[in-house]
């Protein structure tokens, strides 16, 4: 799904003493099929922004194009209902939204509400379970008997059932342990590649943005302050620090290495072992020069 934001602003409680500008003149383009990351300090406007992707919020001013859908302040909500079938949003802690008696009923609740036929639901279910790594044996269990990670997968399965063109992920790994985080991100990366859908990841983790995204947007105080490929954006350590963000640890270390040893190791996605090799070469050369 091709996404275009043109001068989008969102003001909460406009014309009241509580008026608050959460988004200010935000413009960007996300081409269909890309994996974009949106990063920002807490309170930077990320959450307000993502609620515009499926029309939960409408812009106060400006224009949004989501595929064939146009959203403006004047647009009626019923006209954007169809958009919600095509944009799947995985909110923070999606497992808090589980409520049904069984895993199967919970996964089917959303699709049924959106009018997906039982045939389609039945035919899609095995595939979706496979993508989120849930064994079919869990279908008859209560979702509340599952572990935190499994509960989250159930909630995500419900979103994937609609096979949305755009998948929006709001901090999908919060609260999981490191292994769980990696499994979850690898799962989203696989789902993204398999279906060529557009994925937008909202995250605090610079490491995840570096590893999984092909394009990065940096938000600060409701404004879009930087964009580019992860490698481009993360070169600007000082500018990122100014908006309260830290570069990924590996890049921070390479910058410090450069200022100490006077030789730069450009980061192009090397593994830690590969970087260690490059550093060792430089450090050993020093020994020989003495």
């Amino acid at each position, binding site marked *: 799904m091709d996404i275009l934001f043109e001068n989008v602003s969102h003001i909460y409680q406009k014309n009241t003493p509580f008026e608050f500008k959460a988004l200010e003149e935000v413009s960007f383009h996300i081409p269909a099929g890309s994996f974009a990351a949106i990063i920002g*300090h*807490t309170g930077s406007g990320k959450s307000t922004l993502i609620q515009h992707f499926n029309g939960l919020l409408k812009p106060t001013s400006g224009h949004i194009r989501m595929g064939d859908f146009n959203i403006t302040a004047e647009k009626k909500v019923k006209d954007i209902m169809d958009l919600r079938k095509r944009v799947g949003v995985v909110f923070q802690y999606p497992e808090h939204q589980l409520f049904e008696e069984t895993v199967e009923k919970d996964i089917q609740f959303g699709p049924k509400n959106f009018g997906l036929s039982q045939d389609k639901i039945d035919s899609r279910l095995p595939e979706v379970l496979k993508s989120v790594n849930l064994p079919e044996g869990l279908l008859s269990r209560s979702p509340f008997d599952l572990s935190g990670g499994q509960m989250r997968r159930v909630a995500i399965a419900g979103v994937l059932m609609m096979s949305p063109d755009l998948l929006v992920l709001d901090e999908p790994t919060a609260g999981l*342990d490191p*292994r769980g985080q990696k499994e979850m991100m690898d799962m989203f990366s696989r789902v993204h590649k398999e279906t060529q859908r557009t994925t937008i990841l909202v995250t*605090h983790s610079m490491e995840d943005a570096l590893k999984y995204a092909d394009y990065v947007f940096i938000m600060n105080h409701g404004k879009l302050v930087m964009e580019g490929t992860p490698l481009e954006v993360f070169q600007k350590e000082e500018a990122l620090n100014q908006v309260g963000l830290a570069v990924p640890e590996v890049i921070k270390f390479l910058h410090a*290495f450069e200022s100490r040893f006077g030789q730069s190791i450009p980061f192009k996605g090397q593994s830690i072992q590969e970087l*260690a090799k490059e550093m060792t070469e430089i450090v050993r050369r020093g020994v020989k020069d*003495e």
Partner: protein
Amino acid sequence: MSQPNDISFQNISFQYPQGDEWALKDVSFHIEENEWVAIIGHNGSGKSTIAKLMNGLLTPQSGRIHIKGLEVNEENIWEVRKKVGMVFQNPDNQFVGTTVIDDIAFGLENHGVQRDEMLKRMKYSLEAVKMEGYENHEPHNLSGGQKQRVAIASVLAIEPDIIILDEATAMLDPIGRNSIMETVDHVRSERDVSVVTITHDLNEVLFADRVIVMNDGEVWKEGTPREIFNLHKELGEIGLDTPFVTQLSNSLKSEGIVLNQEPLTHKELMDELWTFYSRT
């Protein structure tokens, strides 16, 4: 016993009502007065169960828990809870006040703190978490990080002897996490308080004096952060990562770089590399 430990777990076993397995199996450890201990372990290893046992939210099937010399039992529970301040992962579940300042006042009123003392504590605890100016904001309108800071301020205001942070920074960005850790560190420099952080964040572990590693309901290892991260490979086997610096130094070692000690910070590793570089 001359000086009672702040927290002592003796042979604690615990099983959840519907659980088929023991969440904790014969767990014993001590936490000294004014000590900062990090408890790590993968999900389901028993770390959060420990936190809930510490202030009597759960009761073990066997074993004894003492907090500041008081046994945690039905009789002492309220006395124990006065001594233990807890911050949980999701701040939305722990707000009671309609404004930030009300929320902080709630705990103080419950503890019967006098009004002038209350005003003083509310002021300094909001300053400590850098939330001055938000007194009259509604908690549910704050961002995740701001909410968590208010939750921490509410606990600081009560001046507990023991602060337990149960994955309290999980929802924050790296800079937010660091600032919370520095806040707690600062509080600890001003008065005696023991801190227990239950965490996945490896950089948070570096603030601790000691680390307890949990695995499958048992204490797997105890040691300083340096000793623990030295166990790089074994930690991987029980599903735990090591910090970037540890991973990089291990890779450097396998390339033949000799390091004198296990570095924990960027600076320590850089200094080690520099020593190697400038050695003739």
